[in-house]
């Protein structure tokens, strides 16, 4: 079946079985390999992308269910790694092997959109993506740092005290 998907602001025509998980449409059909496969059963979150701004585990999301919606992958989160979460991730030197980090970043970005100033308990509850390297300590630091960067960079904060 041929249909169109809106990925990172661009329309992509794909011709694939509609039940194909979004993950594999991204990786094998569209060629965006930043989104990773690790479990295939929505346990680990390595495949996390955003659909209409919500974090979604793309390994169990049929492509047909996201037709007409805005799909954002790690490649489209920013043009130049300037999203506050990406900047914070670099400042905190989070990644080790890096395989799960696209999913971690996409989950964190969606989470911070909903909850711009999370507590540690909020992070514990919402950041359920798995990392075998155990970068959790630095992910936590980076999420708090991203909050600061967002506040410092927002129009409301201009002229105010430098939070960073």
């Amino acid at each position: 079946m041929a249909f169109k998907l809106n990925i990172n602001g661009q329309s992509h025509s794909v011709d694939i079985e509609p039940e194909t998980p979004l993950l594999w449409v991204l990786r094998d059909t569209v060629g965006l390999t930043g989104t990773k496969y690790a479990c295939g059963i929505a346990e680990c979150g390595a495949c996390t992308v955003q659909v209409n701004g919500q974090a979604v585990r793309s390994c169990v999301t049929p492509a047909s269910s996201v037709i007409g919606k805005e799909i954002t992958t790690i490649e489209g989160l920013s043009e130049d790694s300037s999203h506050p979460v990406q900047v914070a991730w670099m400042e905190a030197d989070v990644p080790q092997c890096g395989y799960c980090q696209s999913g971690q970043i996409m989950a964190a970005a969606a989470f911070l959109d909903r909850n711009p100033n999370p507590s540690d308990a909020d992070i514990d509850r919402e950041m359920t993506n798995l990392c075998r390297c155990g970068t959790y300590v630095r992910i936590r630091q980076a999420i708090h740092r991203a909050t600061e960067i967002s506040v410092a960079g927002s129009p409301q904060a201009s002229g105010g005290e430098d939070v960073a």
Partner: protein
Amino acid sequence: MILNREITRRKFIRTAVAGGGGMLLGFYLPVAQAVTGSADQQGLIAGNPWTPPTDGAGAEVNAWLLIAPDDTVTIRVAQSEMGEGVFTSMPMIVAEELQCDWSKVKAEYASANRSLQQDGVYKRMATNGSGAVRLSRAYLQQAGASARERLIQAAANEWNVSASTCTAKGSVVTHAASGRTLGYGELATAAADIQLTEEPAIKKPDQFTLMGKPLARLDTPLKVNGSAIFGADVRLPDMLFATSRTSPIVGARVKSYDFDAIRHRPGVHSVVEFQGNDSGIGLRSGVAVVADTWWRAKTALELLPIEWDYGPNTHINSKDVAAKDIEVLNQKTGAVVVDEGAALDIMNDATQVVEAVYTAPHQAHATMEPLGCTAQVRDNQVDIWMGTQGPEGALQEAARQAGVAPENVNVHNCFLGGGFGGRGARSEVAQAVEIAKSLGGRPVNLLWTREEDMNNDYYNPNPMAKFQAALGPGGMPVAWFNRVTSDSIFYWLRPGMTGNGIDRIAVGGLADMPYQIPNKRLEFIMRNKHVPVFFWRAPGVNHNIFMLESFMDEVALANEADPIEFRRALLSDSPQLLNVLNKVVEKADWGKSLQEGTAQGFALSDSFGTIVAEIAQVSVSKRGEVTVEKIDCALDCGNTVNPLIIEHQVESNIAFALSAALYGEITLKEGRVEQSNFDNYPLLGMAEMPEVKTHFALSGGSKWGGIGEAALPTCAPAVANAIFRATGKRIRSIPFKHYDLSWS
């Protein structure tokens, strides 16, 4: 199905620079070949046959580094980047001596093929044993120093002055007397031809200006925007995808399968059967489906009717193995590993003997990226793309499987989505090459499902051990008896190394335990099952230190001694261990007042050349729910290349250890591995990750310890010892989840 790739190398590098605060990292993308033509033209992909640099590309001063006219230095990394930071730490070592501009350093993989053809020029290419810094630092320093002196000599020759009057710094050679300067890029070609009468000495730690600094990792920018290419991400023109299912039980074989049942499914190309062997190691009997996308291959494989002959191992169950282990420990005498004094006699006559039996189950590596390999077999030439801990082994395996000379194989190493000992020695290379052989020159990207990865792993061994300590005056041990039974990694890997019945890894941490006890005996009984065992982060010590350090607390507490004071008394001739112990005791404030149900636990180890002491602070609810609140880790690896990466590794070791200690077990039922995915082999999550504090207790000198695994062994026993002090319940097996830890 291959559409236009959007990431060209140029964009990729630019993005990396923009994101990286000026750090330039040339990790060469396999995808560049698809976009911009042959890799040979670009010289982009590590592992291609080495050719002299073309005009303008720069000059190799030696095999480790290429200097471009614009002063960019490309440093070849012979170790594999799986998260432990070698793409940063290895270049730091070379750059320290080269005295080049760090902001113009790029890293790329060294070529396994070149090392094969040039007499092992890259020396140690397997990444294991926490050995990257520990075992390659000296010759990497030498490579940098020798290149620096050649650059200086080249400048001196140009100016007709003595080299001793010239200095090198920031990629520039300066003749101070005349104020003349030349950049490394201008000097590299001449430097490459210079023969020194004597190679320079390498720097001592007190001379370092780059090593020892907590520099940001070079690969981070690539790992926050999706551009880091892992083995699974390799895309080549005309490439097919495959996934495989091997025998569900080691020793099972495919009897038949019905390709016609899936032949007409969309995108399906073919089925390849692996003849395999029955041994559990190497290529196992199985099938792979090849299709134009991975998902189509995977769904077709699920629908492929396969009949199995389940083979001779269907009677093997973990609970029976454990029952037999106990019987063996009680009835058999093992191969004697340590026999000092008269341990058995004293034990028989002792008035107080503490005794316990400990065990730990198999564990899976469970790297986030399942195993896979992309292979292309053309005429007499084989190329494989993968993230591997052992590029030389992968090269030989591909050559063997394809029937070509090793010189005709290129290994294009990629970023590894986790390693931990599990990536590079299993059957993914043989499978991918076997499939590629049937594809008439088309490349194929083989990627295992998570379920296949867990079913087809080589697991951490499954030991059981009996400990006895005879106590003398003051409650101190006067005799020690330890009998261990376990599978043997070397039985599978190098049978010649177990001829005397002893596997030195299986008794690691026990045979060399640091405590001074005058009479000691250690025996080992090898018991191998049908499933293969292999190196799993901190092999041997990952479970042996759990058993030893838990038991040490049992011995101390038998007479209500403080576990720290008890150990201090047994370590009086080990000042370096005492130094690390004392550091963590101070930093964690050992013995501080804590509320009921919360306690500290201690453990000590000396592995991979690094001494580690950890104190865990753990709370246990009255219902028995465990929260590991904090781990303080003191360590002495002697000197450091990058202390920030060391902190990363401590955190990583602790997370890895806790996954296993709290939840991890691979069990066998009727010969099959019962676990299949993260729902039944859970990993530690954010909410369970403790606060971690790393405390350096560096002794300096000539000590250079490893760090990728050294902080792992002490975590489980420190937590178990804390749980005992919180609840009065002693944990003697992994995983802890099986214990009822409720208290009142």
